[in-house]
């Protein structure tokens, strides 16, 4: 159907490109001029592979950890950094003592903003919030009509983790109601517990890899603040195509 065809002994595009790559890499490139001793030392210690190139004795994230922005060592520090980052990103955070308070908070949000329909997915943290909500609801767990989701005012989801370092919320298509629920409605409400806060992006990725071992969800997305654009005269506008509002209900 496409360029994979291989008529009459002609090299396929795949074979041609891989052959070009092998040929190109026969001459090794010099190492970049690193400033850090750790990387230089790590490389000196690294063994040579069959290609004559040094294999990596140090991994980028391992050396970079102390140089990247701080994500906090203790749970209290992480919470403080997360809250600061989310505020700068213009996300709205409600810190709530328990699930009853979270349900009351969602009720108030729906009332204040005059939401007519909110969409959600089946999840032990999400479902209890919806029982008393003063508007109609759309559940997206199984097949759903994307036209109906487009007309929803808010999408309510759980999350995989919250990253203090950058103020990011990690959602997945496997555990957070698919791909569209967290991006198509005008507002995105995330319900999470304080024990879901991790320090760094690396921690969040490692946790997701361990949780979904061998079978990653088809989408993992770090959401860092409400949708935004600066395309017109570099002036910040919230709500370009994704949610204009990102609201975190943080329980515990």
């Amino acid at each position, binding site marked *: 159907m496409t360029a994979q065809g291989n008529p009459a002994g002609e090299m396929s595009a795949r074979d041609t490109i891989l052959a070009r790559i092998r040929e190109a890499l026969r001459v090794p490139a010099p190492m970049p001029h690193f400033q850090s001793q750790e990387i230089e030392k790590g490389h000196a210690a690294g063994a040579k592979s069959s290609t004559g190139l040094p294999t990596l004795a140090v991994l980028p994230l391992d050396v970079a950890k102390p140089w990247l922005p701080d994500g906090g060592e203790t749970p209290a520090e992480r919470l403080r950094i997360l809250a600061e980052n989310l505020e700068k990103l213009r996300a709205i955070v409600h810190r709530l003592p328990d699930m009853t308070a979270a349900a009351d908070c969602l009720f108030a949000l729906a009332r204040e903003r005059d939401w007519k329909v909110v969409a959600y997915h089946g999840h032990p943290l999400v479902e209890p919030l919806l029982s008393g909500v003063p508007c109609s609801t759309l559940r997206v767990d199984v097949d759903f009509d994307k036209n109906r989701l487009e007309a929803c005012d808010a999408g309510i989801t759980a999350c995989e983790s919250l990253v203090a370092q950058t103020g990011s919320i990690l959602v997945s298509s496997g555990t957070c109601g698919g791909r569209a629920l967290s991006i198509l409605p005008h507002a995105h409400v995330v319900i999470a517990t304080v024990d879901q806060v991790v320090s760094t*992006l690396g921690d969040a990725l490692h946790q997701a890899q361990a949780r979904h071992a061998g079978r990653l969800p088809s989408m993992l997305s770090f959401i860092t603040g409400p949708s935004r654009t600066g395309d017109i005269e570099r002036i910040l506008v919230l709500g370009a195509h994704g949610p204009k509002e990102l609201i975190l209900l943080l329980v515990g």
Partner: protein
Amino acid sequence: MIANAKKQFLHDADEHVRDTGHRAFVQRALGGYYTSRDTQKARYRDWEHARDAASLAKWSAVNRLDELLPRFVANFEANGGRVHWARDAEEARRIVLDLLRAAKARAVIKSKCMTSEEIHLNAAMEQDGYGVVESDLGEFIQQLRGEPPYHFVFPCMHVRRGEISDLFGKHLGTPPTDSPEELTMIARRHMRRLYVDADVGITGANFLVAETGQISITENEGNARLTAALPRVHIAISGIEKVVEHLDDLAVLLPMLATAGAGQPMTCYNTLYAGPRREGECDGPEEMHLVLLDNSRTAILADPEQRDSLHCIRCGACLNVCPIFKNVGGFTYGTTYQGPIGSVITPHLRGLADWNHLSGASSLCGACTDACPVRIDIHHHLLHNRRNAARTAPHWLERIGHRVFVAVASRPWLFATGGAAFRKTLWLAKKLRPPLLRDWLASRDLPAAPSRSFRDEWSRRR
């Protein structure tokens, strides 16, 4: 349009440099970027060292592409995606058109993808009768204007809000407004139905993760998320050099891309896709395709000296700090990738003979190299390209000039005589304004010649 790329460059540069309104507008648009970039950099405990780690991640992947690219492909296909290899632009266009035909596509929605600009995909799709809409706000504006992107990260940074208001009025019938917020909402309202109705979504890819077979897409607006969520078929297009080995390399690269490129802690949406909708998931495309494009990237790979230019993560930081870019503007380059990194790679992609003039589009100040989050030696590569051009096709004037210089400089008596003659006759140059000096003298004062040579002065002071 002038046939010769160099003449076109000189003509456009001259025009843009004289347009002080354009220059002031671009400088002002970048003003906020400098402030936020510095604020975000300060959050790093050591930005300079973090650049080492980012550089290491890309260096180790690019130099092991022979091993990592097949590994990525195997994992991507195990996730249920399909890979298509394209040696050049023509092959890539044909692959995408075949996929559109197979999908019986009627409407196509696209999120920002510079690789698709590189292969001129939109024109090919439109020629075949497909309606294509760019969903990124800046790209949408450029599509309506019928212009390529001005800057590969900020596509319409040269356009004033009034022009956008007129443009939307003309194409979408909306009332005039001078509010960037209202203009953004017009595009938002216009686009929402298009995501829902499109059969095929086309995106780029920022990183290909070898160990997991995921592709990573970075964006602020949410349009790429929608493009990969709602249509039935998702096609991603990527250069072969975008591979990284480990998933956690992205914990270094994603925040640095955002900080260097746009002065953000993280871009708003950083999304990893592992194939189409899985069993048990409630939505997502039924098919996911990835077009892997060479298009002369292997030629850069074959040059060990400039191989690191394949480390580029397309953050655009080098454009934002470049005094040449800020004066001549993005269109003058006449390339898909503008600015310093574009000047380095374009001669490889399109031929050194026709594009070497870009190697001179630099003050060699090194601001680009300092700004690069993955430590590409950009301004030295511009010098390397100049050297390579001089070696392969030296200009006759340069050849004679160098020969004369060698003859004179290797004979001290001739050097002294020549110097004396030069000092005595320099005033003539000012008066006669010979053709080669005329442009230079038009904006500069020629200093007076010293009365004695350096060697005379040296022996006198001893």
